[in-house]
């Protein structure tokens, strides 16, 4: 690494942040110095580092739309401290909403829109040569009192032409269970209404999904295993099995490659996909290569809800996929939106029933949220056209069609926030527990059949309690006139307290069980500390150790 990097890339480091690491390797290969700094809301460490190292460019990776104001504050602190470096920004949100970001954070010089490697290299070259960087394709910037955006460049045709992501500064050896993220492809062929992945890659008019060569993917995994001691891999591909038989053959080729390299039983990996892409024969081949966990974009359990989301799938297909995965003993998680802008009471009820049928047995953790109209998504455009888009560009909001559902959602968010969305909540902890209990790494997983069974029981209780609480709330809200609900919240308040009390009780049991399996000192059983919303580590053990 250069002592005085030409670019300092700043972003969250969750699950390696491969977006930043691909950028770093690309600019380094092009001959520039580069380093990565972990984003923090406290600007002081970053300001000190930038003043010390004096990079020519500081590049921010903005993943979460709602974090934009926070990023703005940090960037302002850099300028206030006298930093004159070129400040650029990239990521999904600024790619779509570049004008809003430039307007609200005027200290940003440019925005690298969509796939960033080639645009950033060209920006670096222009700055190094003292040329006008405003001519760079794919860049947005201030142009006097307006925002300008240059035409986009085509996406990278051959992903294997890019160097592997630079992981030089990641110390996997300190991790309890060394885990690396991987990217075998980019893009997704599906057009779900709530998702911006397809619009993101479609903008550059390339193929909807590009695949790396399986042998290249395997070679990167082999290197990480042999040279860095990493046995667990999390594929961050948008849809690992998206694209029919061709995609399944590709996925199986990666698994086969791991077997040929002698890594079967020594490494384990996780992929994300749709439930209608779960085919038993393909799963079995992938398991032979080390598949240990699947994340499924289930999203909804109501036929009309799935139709509204353009998921092009039926609830029965979700159930069928769950049955296959359970039959194969595979651990899985899933995304689920209990409410969307077009929800009715009937649809919410169906979703609750679906959750009970799908994971009432405790095989997987039932967590849930509502659909959010992120930048670049079809649903955001639709809500806008209907005059229903509220909130701010950074924090978009909407009201449900039935005001009583707004009341239900507000209550649900308050009641289940810790459980569903924080690293100290039941969902996070149980997901970690189930993942490790079913980890297909004989050397690493010390769980007995009984312990796996008990972890499932704890999860079933957590799911059952949530389903009961949600049902009780929806029954009460539906049968009570809105005016009465607004006047008297006693029942809902009591229900929330009850749920939280039961969660606390269950959490104590879960923590006790977890540590007894891990044979950790008993004095650490008492409490799961809050480690914030963006855990670098993703296992509970690491959360507790940090």
């Amino acid at each position, binding site marked *: 690494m250069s002592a005085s990097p030409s670019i300092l890339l700043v972003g969250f480091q969750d699950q390696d942040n491969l977006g930043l690491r691909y950028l770093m390797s690309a600019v380094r290969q092009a001959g520039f110095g580069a380093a990565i700094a972990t984003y923090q809301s406290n600007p002081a460490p970053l300001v000190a580092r930038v003043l010390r190292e004096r990079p020519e460019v500081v590049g921010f990776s903005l993943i979460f739309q709602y974090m934009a104001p926070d990023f703005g504050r940090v960037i302002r602190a850099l300028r206030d401290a006298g930093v004159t470096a070129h400040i650029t920004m990239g990521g999904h949100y600024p790619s779509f909403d570049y004008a809003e970001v430039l307007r609200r954070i005027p200290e940003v010089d440019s925005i690298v829109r969509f796939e960033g490697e080639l645009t950033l290299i060209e920006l670096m070259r222009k700055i190094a040569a003292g040329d006008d960087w405003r001519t760079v394709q794919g860049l947005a910037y201030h142009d006097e009192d307006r925002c300008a955006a240059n035409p986009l460049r085509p996406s990278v045709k051959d992903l294997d032409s890019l160097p592997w992501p630079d992981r030089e500064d990641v110390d996997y050896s300190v991790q309890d269970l060394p885990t690396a993220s991987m990217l075998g492809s980019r893009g997704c062929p599906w057009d779900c209404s709530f998702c911006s992945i397809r619009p993101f890659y479609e903008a550059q008019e390339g193929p909807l999904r590009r695949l790396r060569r399986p042998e290249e993917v395997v070679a990167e995994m082999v290197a990480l295993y042999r040279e860095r001691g990493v046995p667990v891999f999390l594929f961050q591909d948008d849809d690992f099995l998206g694209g029919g038989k061709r995609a399944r053959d590709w996925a199986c080729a990666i698994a086969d490659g791991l077997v040929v390299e002698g890594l079967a039983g020594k490494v384990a990996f996780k992929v994300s996909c749709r439930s209608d892409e779960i085919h038993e024969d393909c799963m079995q081949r992938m398991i032979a290569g080390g598949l240990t966990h699947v994340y499924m974009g289930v999203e909804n359990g109501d036929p009309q809800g799935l139709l509204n989301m353009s998921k092009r799938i039926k609830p029965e297909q979700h159930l069928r996929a769950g049955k296959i995965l359970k039959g194969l003993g595979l651990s899985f998680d899933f995304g689920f939106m209990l409410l969307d802008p077009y929800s009715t009471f009937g649809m919410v009820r169906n979703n609750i029933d679906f959750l009970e049928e799908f994971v009432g047995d405790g095989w997987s953790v039932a967590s849930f949220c509502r659909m959010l109209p992120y930048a670049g998504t079809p649903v955001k455009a639709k809500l806008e056209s209907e005059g229903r888009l509220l909130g701010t560009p950074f924090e978009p909001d909407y009201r449900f069609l039935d005001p009583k559902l707004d009341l239900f959602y507000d209550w649900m968010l308050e009641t289940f926030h810790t459980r569903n969305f924080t690293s100290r909540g039941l969902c996070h902890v149980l997901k970690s527990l189930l993942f490790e209990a079913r980890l297909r790494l004989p050397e690493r997983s010390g769980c007995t*059949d*009984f*312990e796996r*069974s*008990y972890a499932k*029981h704890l999860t079933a*209780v957590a799911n*059952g309690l949530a389903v009961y609480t949600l049902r009780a709330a929806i029954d009460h809200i539906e049968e009570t006139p809105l005016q009465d609900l607004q006047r008297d919240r*006693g*029942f809902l308040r009591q229900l929330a307290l009850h749920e939280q009390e039961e969660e606390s009780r269950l959490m104590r049991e879960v923590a006790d069980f977890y540590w007894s399996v891990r044979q950790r000192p008993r004095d650490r059983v008492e409490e799961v500390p809050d480690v914030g919303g963006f855990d670098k580590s993703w296992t509970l053990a690491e959360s507790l150790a940090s």
Partner: protein
Amino acid sequence: MPNTDLESIAQRLDRIEQLLTHRPGPGPIVDPGPEDTVRSGAHASAVHLPSLPHRGDPPPSDIARLSRQEVQDQLHQVNAEVVRLQSLGKMLNERLGQLKEG
């Protein structure tokens, strides 16, 4: 004579009263946890098996006197225990099925 009869009756009433008001000494408030279902004998995992609910409150003596909120609260607690017990029952049934299969 009458006095003797009265004393006798008084003694009988005392005994009846004692019987009626007799409270047994401390005993098991809740059922013990189930045995380890994996194997008989000592096993470290046995400590993880859940005990049956500790909420040993007796049914309310007069439900009619509870407020609506109190009844709802009791109902939530009962339903939470039902969820726990159903899950525990499933776990034990699964294990029983495995044992039956040999």
